[in-house]
């Protein structure tokens, strides 16, 4: 089982590769959809601007490949911007996301964040009933200016807090996404990635 990491050239994938190797996996970095093989789940990391990432998804033919594979049942894990790309759209841009889970990406509500600053940069404890995350509680490192807003509350996998509670992880069948960075969240990140991937051995 080799996790397939989609390299959109947005953000640094080194940290995620390093953490996966530390866990004993051998991730395959794929710059083009033709390189993708079916030996493991798709991991979609990303940092930066929504529209820029979408244009790369389209220009390199990733959109069609990902939607086809995922619709046929291939698991996918989106991280940070990668999670946002799984949704329909974002306040940050005008282009369409992959639409694999219904929802949009919205700006933090300034009237509710109190003296917290944007971007949300730092650790936040999450609340979740999923066993993908360690018990009794887990915290993760977040870096983002926008957060998910789901159409179906049942697609919410975890919530975090920054002035107010917001959806920070999503899941519907074989589609999973986390707003936070497991690869920057030491033992909590290691636990999550290991739990997620060990399901596919």
């Amino acid at each position, binding site marked *: 089982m080799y996790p397939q990491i989609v390299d959109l050239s947005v953000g640094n994938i080194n940290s995620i590769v390093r953490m996966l190797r530390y866990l004993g996996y051998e991730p395959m970095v794929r710059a083009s959809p033709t390189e993708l093989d079916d030996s493991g789940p798709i991991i979609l990391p990303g*940092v930066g601007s929504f529209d820029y990432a979408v244009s790369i998804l389209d220009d390199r033919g990733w959109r069609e490949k990902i939607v086809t594979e995922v619709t046929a049942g291939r698991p996918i894990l989106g991280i940070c911007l990668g999670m946002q790309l799984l949704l329909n759209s974002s306040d940050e841009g005008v282009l369409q996301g992959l639409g694999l889970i219904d929802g949009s990406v919205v700006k933090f509500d300034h009237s509710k964040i109190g003296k917290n600053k944007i*971007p949300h*940069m730092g*650790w936040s404890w999450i609340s979740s009933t999923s066993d993908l995350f360690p018990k009794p509680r887990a915290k993760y490192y977040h870096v983002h200016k926008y957060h998910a807003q789901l159409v179906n509350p049942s697609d919410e996998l975890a919530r975090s807090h920054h002035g107010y509670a917001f959806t920070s992880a999503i899941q519907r069948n074989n589609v999973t996404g986390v707003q936070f960075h497991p690869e*920057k969240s*030491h033992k909590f990140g290691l636990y999550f990635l290991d739990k997620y991937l060990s399901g596919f051995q």
Partner: protein
Amino acid sequence: MFRVIPQLLLSGGELYKTTKFKNPKYIGDPINAIRIFNEKEVDEIIVTDISATKERLPPNFALIEDLAAECFMPMTYGGGIRSMKDVDLLFSCGIEKICIQSALANDYSLLRDISTKYGNQSLVVSLDFFKPLFGKLKIYNSAVHGKLKGSYKDLQFISNLEIEGVGEFLITSVDHEGCRNGMDIDLISAVAKKSSVPIIAAGGIGSFEDIRAASVAGASAVSVGTYFVFYGSRKAVLINYLNQEQIRKVEFLDGL
């Protein structure tokens, strides 16, 4: 959540501590220090090379790569960054954020290039402040050993820098640095009020109360140097972090 970030000062590949930016004192091997902080599961790490800028050296990329490989939390690096090439190399070494200071003495174009390519969240601007014997609080720039544009009373440059895409400001009070006597709370308040992005406050932490005071003043994080370095009875150096009780207290700092 409020962040407590150990800051390591490198000089010639070794770890040092300074007092008011002077009298560097050798501490030990940086890789060991990073390993210890990784084991203690610190929030984040800042590594600053204090010799690179002064001696016009490039960053020590090989060492930085080794340091980054030791930790699974965000690492920020600063010191000797002069060009986009330096920045590209640093990110490929595994650094999460880069910290710019002396490059600002000339112009802000490097900031714009970095934030466009890597995103605002990857860019920290470091500003050091000091109080001369006479006169108003001034900004100190290590490359030119003198004033940057602007002074503490007029913080317009903070907004100007934000426009270039700065993600966070690292604000250091030189007068308090290394002394463990408390931070410059007025400075932190003034900058936190002016800035719409998170502020990391540095310089002078000597107790948990100092950390709390920085949070109340509006900082989103503190960068800690000397307070985490303990000189044992036989002049042995011990690297420390917050104890469990202090870590629990940090969680309550939000919403103050």
